[in-house]
């Protein structure tokens, strides 16, 4: 049987993920809390979970007219579709350049990849978001103007351009697998594995990188900075896992992907949640999810609080 190796390694396939984990453990009515980032951040506020600050939520085309005034106090920001997926439609503006010409303020925006965008283009992008270009299923959407999170200095040697994020798969409240996504030049500074970012698997018990891949290929060094990735030690590791485990209590989804960024000042911050986290994390860890998920299924205890659950995960994975 051609799949015997996959079975032996306990690789989780898409059909199995959907049929046995997502459909069984994720109640449909809870999806809006993760699919809509506006709702996620409101909920997180109630639970005391740190998230990036939302400056502005644009709900209709009319509000685009005075957008320049509304963001007048911002020097950098991120534009996100509230219902986007896989990082589609996200634009990071790291610098807003305002010039006076004959009494008219001209605004140029510098993106994280150093490309310049006219303010007109920014508005066009936002109107695309509002009409549902990037949302799941194409429904009309809202656009979030969010504060740009700073990159933690630990990543300076391990990333190119944008900000790395940490993905933790949480099953029934227990962290089961984790990786950090490190932007590269070929990923255009984005932490997106499909576009060529590095996926580095992280051992839950230690917070150390176990393997790193670009696409399907194992690598040892960052292609742009040349540093050996195994030397990366994630700070605040226990807090990262605590945060991820708490997300289960917050949204109640049994099978969950938490995307977390490390900030220099606030520590781990929840970026977004995902009800259908991808399977590439197994490649980054060179390990299958199935044995871990089954261990949790067999030992899950609803009475345990997030600290006890993280203890369990750090002990076993």
């Amino acid at each position: 049987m051609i799949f015997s190796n996959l079975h032996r390694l306990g690789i989780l396939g898409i059909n199995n993920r959907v049929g046995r984990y997502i459909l069984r453990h994720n109640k449909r009515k809870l999806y809006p809390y993760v699919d809509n980032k506006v709702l996620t951040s409101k909920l997180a506020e109630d639970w005391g979970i740190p998230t990036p600050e939302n400056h502005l939520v644009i709900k209709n085309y009319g509000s685009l007219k005075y957008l320049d005034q509304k963001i007048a106090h911002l020097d950098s920001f991120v534009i996100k579709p509230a219902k986007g997926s896989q990082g589609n439609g996200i634009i990071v503006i790291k610098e807003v350049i305002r010039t006076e010409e004959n009494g008219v303020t001209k605004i140029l925006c510098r993106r994280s990849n150093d490309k310049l965008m006219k303010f007109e283009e920014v508005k066009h992008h936002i109107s695309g978001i509002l009409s549902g270009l990037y949302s799941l299923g194409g429904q009309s959407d809202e656009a979030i103007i969010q504060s740009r999170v700073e990159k933690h200095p630990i990543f300076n040697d391990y990333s190119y351009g944008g900000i790395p994020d940490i993905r933790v798969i949480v099953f029934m409240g227990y962290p089961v697998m984790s990786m950090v996504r490190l932007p590269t030049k070929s990923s255009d500074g984005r932490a997106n594995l499909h576009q060529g970012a590095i996926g580095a698997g992280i051992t839950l018990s230690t917070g150390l990188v176990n393997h790193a891949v670009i696409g399907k290929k194992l690598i040892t060094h960052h292609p742009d900075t040349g540093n050996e990735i195994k030397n990366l030690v994630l700070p605040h590791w226990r807090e990262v896992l605590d945060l991820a485990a708490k997300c289960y209590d917050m949204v109640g989804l049994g099978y969950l992907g938490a995307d977390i960024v490390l900030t220099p000042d606030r520590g781990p911050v929840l970026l977004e949640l995902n009800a259908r986290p991808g399977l590439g994390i197994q490649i980054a860890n060179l390990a299958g999810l199935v044995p871990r998920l089954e261990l949790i299924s067999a030992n899950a205890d609803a009475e345990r609080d997030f600290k006890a659950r993280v203890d369990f995960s750090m002990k076993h994975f």
Partner: protein
Amino acid sequence: MRTKIIIFTLCLLFIPLGILFYKVNYLNLSILPQKVDDFWHFHLTIRPRSKDTARFPLPRAYPGLRISDEKIVSDNSEIIIEHQSDSNLAKWTNLGEGRGGVFYSAKINIDPLVYKTFHKDYTQYYPRSFQKYLKVPELTAEELEAIESLEVAILEGDEDKTSAIRKIYYYVDEEIRRNFGVTKIHESLFTGNGSPLVKAKIFNIMARRQRVPARIVVGIRTPTPQEEASKSKIRFTYANEVYLNNKWIPVDTNRSYFGVRPDNFLVLHRNYDEVGKYLSKKNASYNIQIQRAKMNRFNKEVYRDEVNKSNSWLAKLSLYRLPLPLQQMFSTILLIPLGTLVLAVARNLIGIPTLGIFTPIILTLFFKETSFGFGLFFFSVIVGVGIVERYILDKFYLLAVPRLSIILTFVILFMIGYTLISGDGGFFSQRHLAFFPIVIVATNIERLSIMLAEEGFINTSKTLVGTIVIAILGYLLFSVPSLEVLMFTNPELLFTVIGLLILIGKYKGYRLSEFLRFRDLVRQKKNLEGGK
């Protein structure tokens, strides 16, 4: 829960098959309507030479012969169709001056008749109505002498009737060569040559002298393609039938058939004794034309008749009772679930990426409505044009809905342009379903260009190729004509499709694509383990 699902699925899978079994075995409906492949256009023109009453044989349906679209037209005669036991005779009285002609046309369909076993026959008594088939015509002394000496030579006198008939058949078939010039019985027996009619007469007389009911059949042989090409004139031809073991067995001593009537032989009249005189050229001139009409479709009318004759409510639920335009619509629509089956296998078992979920099926329908080559060409051009347009429109900073609508309008402009330039409206005329693909193509252009921007050329191409591959697979499936008719005839099979979809939906194993996706992982893991 698990067992419930299994039982439910099994019910879905097998109840329709049960219904099918019931329909076929208890309601005597066919699984599929009969296939109509070849039929013949049959035209007969008769011009009687006498001014009075004339008669002429016309085809009449018998088991193996189906006749439809019969038409009889005459210039100035009154025509009566006489139904006789052996055939139909058209009788007309020439009313006016001149030679009023009669034109007969029909579609005919001939199935072969084949008997395989022939038991010994010792029948002594036949019904009174058979006397006419036993009466030996009056023979001249020469004829009688020739026949009697032949009987002495080939028959032993104590065999059963079947064996005697076989011996006569072998002699007439093999020892008398076909020769249109020899028309006298004794001459034929003496020289070993004979016209088809005289051979049939000899067989007939000899059979009757053995007290076996026999008759000469008047018929027409449908032309071979070569004969059709050379436009050779079609004449009457003659064969025999003998009554053995309560069955009329066809015999043809001119083409060497015993117990077989091939599908190129059309019986016009079963008793030459009665009709022979009308066929004489002294009485009438005739002109026969038969053209082959190749067809490859199913005879829905015949099935509809079957349905209507059946008294079961189940059969009454048939789609064949709908008006024809609705029937056509449903016969296409009923294929869509089969397409989803292909799609589900391709996506969930193989893991082929597609652009949107149902795009491949819409594309398949588009292929089916136009044609495969044209559909693919049209799709590619439209997508190409659309992407260029979107690229240009990007500069205008338009809101999404108007922009999409502009692309949609461009697609329609392109269709108009194409139709006008090529002067070939065939692809779009009366194709109501062609409307769906327009919208789908337009939305796909949008999705495709976003995908191009965000996931790059390679991923987009993979998805595009996947979409087209599934559309092609669906198209191949849709092109099986019997499948379309099977679904249309037995729409309850949709439940079987649902059952299969549940099975696919419950599949939790790996997709074929995941074998590739995780292949490197497996290999690297092995390397690492091996290195330890």
